[in-house]
């Protein structure tokens, strides 16, 4: 059966109580005349699943369109209340518009409804949107703040929303510089109201981390782990090193936890455009020098090699998989609590 994707209601409001009323209406599919028809009775007696509140902040209509595509794909697997804040901090007179809609999907054979509120603010009111967001959340459910692009760290809205949120999801591949990474770490390590951080860029490193860890699960290889004396991370020529720094920071942080200091060298690879393309781990054991390498192969694959004292071990090729924004976000939405390894890697990459 093909999916049904209906806009049950789309209107413009400025008053928070009116938005709340409309949310109730679309949440239960009630008639907007307020009368209890037979259909409305049925709808009222139906249970609804909701797993979270999702807040996302965009700065332009173009970004809104991109984000909406991701949220559409996500609405079937994560029934939620989604608040999209289109905050335009321009000099125009303060103005606030709201649209309430509900997406009902039936691809799985069951009705899954996600209600969505778009708050479009201009001028000063854009800075104070958090005051409106608070009253629109579903109680007792986690609040995830997804901030596509580089967040406005100095905008009071950022701090206000981080305080509301249980988790802040970003993509440090989208133009994050060192000061931005520092601010991110500060958010995670605040004494009060700290949000856990999810990072698409970190999630993309999972296959690299997994393969690196597997090297030392092999019989006789654990001894090399404690004797790592250096790593090299190759990255694309476009100059973006955030991902390479995180991978280097990860192994540095992990090894520091057992008292081993590992120097990390970042090297550009002219044959590759963007992101990490090769990861080399050097160790010196009683059986000689060892080199563990993971290389990106065309077609979205990773291959591994182990060489110990000039002897090659069996290599293998696995899928790396390029995950879309909706897949990455869907995974982030299921992760609980602080990712201490990410925070450790981030801190190490900033040292």
């Amino acid at each position, binding site marked *: 059966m093909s999916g049904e994707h209906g806009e049950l209601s789309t209107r413009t409001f400025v008053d928070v109580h009116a938005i709340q009323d409309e949310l109730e209406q679309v949440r239960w599919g009630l008639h907007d005349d307020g009368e209890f028809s037979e259909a409305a009775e049925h709808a*009222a007696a*139906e249970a609804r699943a909701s797993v979270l509140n999702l807040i996302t902040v965009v700065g332009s209509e173009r970004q809104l369109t991109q984000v909406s595509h991701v949220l559409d794909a996500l609405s079937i697997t994560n029934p939620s209340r989604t608040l999209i804040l289109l905050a335009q901090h321009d000099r125009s007179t303060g103005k606030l518009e709201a649209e309430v809609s509900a997406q009902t999907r039936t691809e799985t054979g069951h009705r899954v409804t996600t209600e969505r509120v778009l708050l479009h603010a201009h001028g000063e009111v854009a800075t104070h949107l958090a005051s409106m967001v608070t009253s629109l959340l579903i109680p007792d459910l986690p609040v995830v703040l997804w901030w596509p692009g580089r967040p406005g760290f100095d905008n009071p809205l950022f701090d206000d929303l981080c305080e509301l949120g249980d988790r802040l999801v970003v993509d440090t591949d989208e133009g994050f510089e060192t000061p931005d990474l520092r601010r991110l770490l500060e958010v995670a390590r605040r004494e009060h109201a700290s949000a856990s951080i999810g990072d698409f860029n970190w999630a993309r490193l999972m296959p690299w981390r997994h393969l690196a*860890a597997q090297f030392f*699960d092999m*019989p006789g290889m654990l001894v090399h782990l404690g004797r790592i004396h250096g790593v090299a991370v190759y990255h694309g020529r476009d100059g973006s090193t955030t991902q390479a720094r995180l991978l280097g920071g990860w192994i540095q942080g*992990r090894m520091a936890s057992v008292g081993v200091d590992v120097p990390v060298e970042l090297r550009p690879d002219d044959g590759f455009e963007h992101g990490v393309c090769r990861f080399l781990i050097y160790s010196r054991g009683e059986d000689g020098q060892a080199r563990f390498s993971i290389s990106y192969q065309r077609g979205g694959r990773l291959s591994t090699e182990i060489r110990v004292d000039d002897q090659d071990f069996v290599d293998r090729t*696995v899928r790396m998989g390029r995950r879309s924004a909706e897949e990455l976000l869907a995974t982030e939405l299921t992760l609980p609590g602080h*990712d*201490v390894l990410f925070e450790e890697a981030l801190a190490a990459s900033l040292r």
Partner: protein
Amino acid sequence: MAQAVTTLTQNVLREGLILPRTPDPAVMVIFGASGDLTARKLMPALYNLALNRYLPSGFSVIGVADTALSEADFKANMAEAVRKFSRTQPVDHAVWQSVAEGIAYVRMPFDDQDGYGRLAAELERMDRERGTNGNRVFYFATAPQFFPVIVERLGASGIARAGEGWKRVVVEKPFGHDLKSAQALNQAIHAVFSEKQVYRIDHYLGKETVQNVLVFRFANGIFEPIWNRRYVDHIQITVAEDIGIGRRGKYYETAGALRDIFQNHLLQLLSIAAMEAPANFDADTVRDEKVKVLKSIHPIDVANDVIHGQYGPGWVGGQQVPGYRQEQNVSPTSTTETYVAVRLRIDNWRWADTPIYLRTGKRLPSRASEIAIQFKNAPHLPFAKTAVQDLNPNVLVMRIQPHEGASLKIAAKIPGPVMRLRTVNMDFFYGSSFLIESPDAYERLVLDCLLGDPTLFAREDEVERAWGLADTIETGWATQPPPNFPNYAAGTWGPEAADALMERDGRRWRRP
């Protein structure tokens, strides 16, 4: 520069990753490698495990069968099988090549002593060239009559014990056809392998949905306090199939619903629905609790508590279908049962006097596997009689398939000026909360075996207890007059006697 020397006892890079560790490099020897199971299930499972980085470097496969195939032919067949049956598509050629490099084929009859010599030489080559260190999984994907001879030859040739490394045996269902044959098979296997090395596969337990029942029960604090005789009126466990027996007539004639579904799937579902909370999730702790349930089952009164049936011609899903006796490879006077319903009692503090009804059947109106817990009625209803007409008791249903999830049936007031109540279902679908595609049951089970975790495999005592119950029923039937089959039409919910069984208790079967 001074060399840092730190001796580590664990892999600190592994923290935060999905698996606690990677399996050791090993060789999986598949007996029956040219068969359907290898092509449809095993090889696609191995490919997907490799694709997702779960298999270690050096992991190797030796296919063993008596089919005239070169190694290249065998690899080509396996590549074709993966292309056809892998759950992930399209097949990644480079990843498959990486898997295929570790595949070999040994042609031999399963009782040929010389063949085992060649197999041993091939295993040694794998150890030498691929670093598999003597670790072996012997996977019996053959017809069950070959299990004893393969075990015996593995022992006699020394392969079962050769060199270092662990050795494990995976045995496919059916594990015996009654208690006596199951015991004989256990004995034959134990002459060579200890119980800790034996992995009896029941793919039902590898299903995400079945594991979810355990999570549902033991990770949610609100259900356990009411999961007992004080609040539960009865339990219904259903494994219904709308399909017939297809081309499995020959097998089904010797099995029937009792051996095919009741002895394994239904009793597994019963165990996980009725077991006590295990202290931890260790293999033996979980299996101890499951076996305790089977041990607590009150002796079955076959004449009064068991109903069997066989489908006749009828209509299913808008299609006219033949009766069981008209199916391919089935005797026209067959008395094989295609439906079983059993009323059980469990003699323990939790479930005393709480009946548990199990049923399974072929050619029922729909496909459904579920565990339904029906609670007792509220002790007193303060509403006017007209308000609560047809009010049903609370039911908690854990659905295994299709549409895995849970639903709770509760009473609610119909909005309006008068007090009118109606029953509503609150549904939760796992599918709507998780985007990740569920792995095939075989992937999970093969990986568990490689990691040495037998939690989701059946233990010797569990299998023998289950066969004991099936034997009791079979013996009871033998003392009864021949059944008047067929006794239900395809596309109906089984024989009338099954409804009567419930009606005697003042209850009704659910419509799943």
